């Protein structure tokens, strides 16, 4: 009779012990060297606690005294989000067609994919800074920024949806001698419209969030109000703005979720 092992141990995550301990060692070395090389001013950070105390002390209680400014900023953010969503959704349709492998020839496909990759690579704040420099401060720069942001997301997902359509209707239209545009309108559009509407509602919510941020670099909306309040050490007003932003985002998330659930 063989003696059974009386202890059981969980199998390690990585079977090869050399690789396992090598990986652990590599992680430790990486963390230590990174912390050693990052330019960190420890003295300044040590002051952080007292500064945090001052900031939060100044922030409580939140001040809603200038609520007109707050409401104006929010309405502007809302307008920016709406216009950017409309613009982004309209522009993302041709770009999505360009980026769908089953619709267009290969060179056009590469152009479409390149547009989407570029639009997705840049964080909206970077795009906003460039647009603020190009077209001046204000909501117009914010709208342009969020159009680019919407294209990156909506066109990518729409292109994926187009690539998944049922090819039957397309072939039927082609066999009947329909020109390219008619094929798109009658065979492809009905298959992707539902997805596009869902994406549009999601993007409206997402643009409203983003418009709170792009304002910080001068592209209009509530973000500009927040950045101003913060810059003037008006921490109580800044806290009020942040609280309202959080509330609005939660509401818009719930509304957009409910609508998407209904149309899905």
């Amino acid at each position, binding site marked *: 009779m063989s003696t059974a092992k009386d202890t059981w141990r969980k199998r390690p995550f990585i079977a090869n012990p050399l690789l396992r301990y090598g990986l652990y060692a590599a992680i430790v070395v990486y963390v230590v060297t990174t*912390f050693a090389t990052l330019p*960190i001013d420890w003295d300044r950070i040590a002051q952080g606690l007292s500064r945090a105390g001052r900031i939060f002390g100044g922030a409580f209680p939140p001040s809603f005294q200038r609520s007109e400014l707050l409401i104006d900023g929010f*309405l502007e953010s*809302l307008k920016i989000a709406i216009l950017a969503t409309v613009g982004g959704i309209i522009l993302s349709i041709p770009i999505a067609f360009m980026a769908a492998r089953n619709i267009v020839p290969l060179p056009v496909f590469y152009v479409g994919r390149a547009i989407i990759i570029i639009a997705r690579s840049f964080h909206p704040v970077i795009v906003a800074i460039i647009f603020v420099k190009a077209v001046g401060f204000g909501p*117009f720069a914010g709208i342009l920024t969020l159009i680019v942001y919407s294209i990156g997301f909506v066109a990518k997902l729409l292109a994926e949806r187009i690539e998944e359509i049922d090819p039957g209707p397309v072939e039927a239209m082609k066999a009947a001698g329909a020109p390219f545009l008619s094929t798109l309108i009658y065979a492809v559009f009905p298959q992707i419209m539902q997805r596009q509407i869902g994406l549009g509602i999601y993007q409206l919510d997402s643009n409203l969030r983003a418009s709170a941020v792009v304002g910080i670099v001068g592209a209009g909306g509530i973000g500009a109000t927040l950045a101003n309040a*913060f810059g003037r050490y008006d921490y109580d007003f800044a806290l009020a703005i942040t609280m309202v932003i959080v509330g609005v985002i939660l509401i818009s998330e719930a509304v957009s979720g409910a609508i998407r659930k209904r149309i899905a």
Partner: protein
Amino acid sequence: MEQVQLHDWARYTPVQRFQRYGLFALTALVVAWALGSVNIIWAWVWDAPTQMGDLFSRMVPPDPTHLDQILSALWETVNLATIATALAVVLALPVAYIAAQNTTPNALTLWLGRFILVSSRSVNTIIWALLFVAIFGPGVVAGIVAIMFRSIGFLGKLLGEAIEEIDPKPVEALKACGASHFKVVLYAIVPQVMPTFFAVAILRWDINLRESTVLGLVGAGGIGMILQGAIDTFNWQEVSTVLLAIIALVVAGEIVSSYLRRRIL
């Protein structure tokens, strides 16, 4: 030959059609309101294509003279994102544990966990960064803490949902054997959420890499500081170099994360 009279066919019933037209009208009205009242100087709009063209013509060719500084800032950005993600993953574990309905000790901790998740997720990284730059001063620490604060909500929410969806049978089996609470967590829950854990951590790392490229614009370290400097000095050729570097970083991040996802999952 006489034409066959087809039965009138309509895709929608009159009520549906009415609802559709109503929705279209409402949408058009909202857009018109936004367009009519938004504070835009239209002269700037018509001028925009010229201005954009002018800006882009100043950007080419990209100027690589400060490439070494840009690359080291890029590496700093990667480190910032990685360290912040790692710290956030560690901190998100207990939050996910108390925010999941089936593991949280009591109702109070459940609401505490949910409060942490919601407040962390609703405030954007940049806004967190503004706050932490004011607290810790400009630099990478503010960036790391800002990304960490935002990531905890994201990781905690998705992990918490994964914990809520586990199969309860292993938990019951271990409890029936008399295993301690710690062992139940370690042997019945952890193995079930492991795949989600890695998937979510990798996804968040990819997102953090993108976000850390802009932290510098509010003074929180990384490549954004160089970008801001170049923009402030109207050095547009350097700006385009930095932008190209950022694209390269983001694409590389996407490749690495999709490779890791395939390897681990």
